[in-house]
């Protein structure tokens, strides 16, 4: 067994008297979709915030490719190759998919001086179009604003963007919430393609049937701890629900 790509070990986080995480564990391998599930208040979003640098853990370690690392700011997370797609904070609705794709990392033309440099729109359009096509994202026209796209398309643009700029792990927070059946299917297929590129994907979701269908491993959080992990094909909706709600730890927990 090789080193996991990303491993969180013994992560604890308290907010005043509330214990959000109590020694939580999470491991993700390259090229795999790891579903992170748990009931409301189980600590999923706190763990995601810690891994994406928005919050700092009180204790515990994070290892990236076997090396212990600190992730104290979102920028640091990005520099380490970890990108997060939060539910609704990902895109600027008035900009085009291309502009969003390159936002903050615009491709500049060369040789026009330092202060007043032009962005290379053609190159960015080409690259974005290629990237969208490679990932199987179809847009009516890449020239319209993101705000006029469907929910699934928006989510796809956000995921494509994260996949482009992260070279290790992408974290998706409820990417299929509020999507229709067809769109959900498209987004999940996109997630699979992203994982096939060799990225580790952490998929936070409520939807058990997605998890059973698509995840390579499922890790269940309850009351701030990991109470169960399932490999591919080992989980069923019933077993997941049982793990999320029952009082006893399930014996399949990985060591």
């Amino acid at each position, binding site marked *: 067994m090789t080193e996991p790509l990303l491993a969180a070990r013994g992560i604890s986080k308290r907010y005043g008297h509330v214990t959000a995480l109590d020694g939580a564990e999470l491991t993700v391998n390259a090229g795999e979709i790891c579903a992170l599930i748990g009931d409301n208040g189980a600590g999923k979003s706190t763990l995601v915030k810690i891994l994406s640098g928005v919050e700092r853990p009180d204790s515990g370690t994070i290892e990236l490719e076997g090396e212990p690392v600190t992730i104290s700011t*979102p*920028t640091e997370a*990005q520099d380490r190759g970890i990108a997060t797609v*939060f539910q609704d*904070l*990902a*895109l*600027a*609705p*008035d*900009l*085009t998919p*291309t*502009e*969003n794709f390159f*936002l*903050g*990392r*615009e491709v*500049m033309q060369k040789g026009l001086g330092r202060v*007043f*440099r*032009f*962005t290379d*729109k*053609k190159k960015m*359009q*080409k690259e974005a*179009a290629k990237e*969208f*096509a*490679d*990932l*199987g*994202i*179809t*847009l*009516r*026209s*890449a*020239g319209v*604003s993101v*705000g*006029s796209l*469907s929910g699934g398309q928006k989510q796809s643009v956000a995921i494509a963007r994260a996949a482009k700029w992260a070279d290790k792990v992408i974290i998706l927070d409820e990417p299929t919430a509020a999507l229709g059946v067809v769109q959900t299917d498209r987004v999940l*297929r996109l997630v699979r*393609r992203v994982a*096939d*590129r060799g990225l580790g994907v952490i998929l936070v979701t409520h939807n058990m049937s997605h998890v059973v269908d698509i995840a390579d491993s499922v890790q269940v959080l309850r009351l701030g701890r990991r109470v169960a992990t399932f490999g591919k094909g080992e989980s069923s909706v019933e077993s997941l629900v049982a793990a999320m709600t029952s009082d006893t730890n399930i014996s399949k927990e990985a060591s």
Partner: protein
Amino acid sequence: MRLTDESPKAVVPEAAEQSLSERWRERLGGGWILLLLVVLLAVFTILRPAQFATPFNLSTLATDAAILLVVAIGQAFVIMTAGIDLSVGSVLVFSSVTSALTMLALSGESTATYGQTDASWGVIAIGLVVAVVSGLAWGLINGLLVSRTRIPALIVTLGTMGMALGAAQVITNGQDVRGIPALLVTWVGSGQLAGIPVLILVAVVVAVVAAVALNKTRFGTWTLATGSNEEAARRSGVKVRAQLLKVYALSGALAGLAGMMAIARFSTTTIGGHTQDNLATISAVVLGGTSLFGGVGTILGTVIGVFIPVILLNGFIILGIPPFWQTIAMGAVLVVAVYIDQMKRKKKTLS
């Protein structure tokens, strides 16, 4: 690349897909405002061809619009970030006062409160720098407060609006400075270059540079991104605070430049004459299709938005309609403009 799924459908490349008219419509914020401008020009031309459509009248009209346009362009960038700058008129006044007093002092006639001075071009250049730097300073104050504190831009700039005008009045004791360099008034204020008034040329240069900056540079993209979704922009790596600071500084600096243009044109500072500039520029920007909610805007639209009230006033005067009607017409047009903006927003969020 390992793709196991069916081959993906190609993405339509954007430049080719958008027709020319579509792109223009986008640039003009829906196009209806351009239509309004054309209709106004046509109506006044048909009704009074001998008076309205003359080169002299049109050039007077454009000169009237030039100073306001320079201020409105700064305002446009601010509004694109979903902010607002109420201080522009006061900053214009403050800058014109500091500039006029500097030029007066350097011309060696510091006692001359009336009449023009014989200050050299060198002195005028220093005056220009003083005007722009004065405006820039107020812009930086606005930008720092807006980006670093949680005070809304409306309140920050309402505060600096009072402070800048008050400071100008304190410095001058409320008396306009009339000792303006004759060269400035003759060659810039009422001068022409190749038959085009210099003030118009200045405004055109500012507008062209602004349009290029908005459409072709990272500064432009980041301005719109900040206004569209500040948090998303921040998470994408846009330096939102620095961007806001730059945008408000730009607005201040342009108000300073406009202050210099104003003393050139009127041969005096105009301390009491700019209390409406903020609202005039805001309505011009909004008329031009820039959204008050940020994220969307064009410079060409802003130019048209500046011209509409000027043309209305000019046309009404020529037609013998009491000019007070212009204010009423402008108010109505502004409400309609914001209504259209809201409808567009609603359509967007519903889809």
